[in-house]
């Protein structure tokens, strides 16, 4: 198992750090360009939720992100934050059959994560949220 770690603050400006990190990760691990694109999206959606809604105070918090690649070519991303408990796996999927007028604005971020990744799991341990995302690299 190969592992790489990224730590970001709970600031929107940190997202550019993630873009650079994923570019490098894609090169180091030889990930397909399409997958790097998808991972950018998944990370933006997950981190934006944590940064915007995860904290009630104005303090600086760190968010740990661990990337793993197994011998079986499975990519795993674990995002750990000490924000409010929030289980995104419980969020209902949007109704895609609605007309433009009926479609609510927003609510697509978590749905995109679920559609892109093979598996989305959540755990709450020691006052931390653990969001564990996995995807086969070649799927």
């Amino acid at each position: 198992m190969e592992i790489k770690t990224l730590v970001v603050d709970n600031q929107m400006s940190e997202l550019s750090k993630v873009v650079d990190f994923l570019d490098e990760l894609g090169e180091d691990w030889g990930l397909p360009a399409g997958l790097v694109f998808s991972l950018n999206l998944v990370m933006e959606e997950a981190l934006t939720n944590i940064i915007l809604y995860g904290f009630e105070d104005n303090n600086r918090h760190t968010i740990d992100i661990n990337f793993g690649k197994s011998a079986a070519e499975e990519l795993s991303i674990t995002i750990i934050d000490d924000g409010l408990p929030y289980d995104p796996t419980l969020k209902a999927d949007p109704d895609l059959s609605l007309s433009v007028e009926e479609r609510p604005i927003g609510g697509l971020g978590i749905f995109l994560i679920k559609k892109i990744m093979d598996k989305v799991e959540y755990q709450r341990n020691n006052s931390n949220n653990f969001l564990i995302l996995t995807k086969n690299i070649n799927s």
Partner: protein
Amino acid sequence: MNVKITTLPDYTLISVEGRVDTTTSAGLEKTLMESIDGGCTKIILDCSGINYISSSGLRVFLVIQKKMISIKGHFNLCNLQPGIREIFDISGFSSIFSIFPDKEAAMIG
């Protein structure tokens, strides 16, 4: 993200380049809303330069589409890169937007 606006007699052509994400989407929404408030009822959005979109960007597209429908206008998208088209498909946006393969088709549509 860069936005180029060309106002023509029958429509306004807006070309967007770069990332439409959490940090840039508000700027795009402002630009598009200003065009609509300025009386534009047909927008052709050339998406050929968009290389990334997140839910923040999709949100702007939906806001504009709702607005255009309410004023009986047209919001025609063209030249979506495959990766962007895939996100539209996943989100169910491909069925609620007018998407054309190129600018010429979007002009007629």
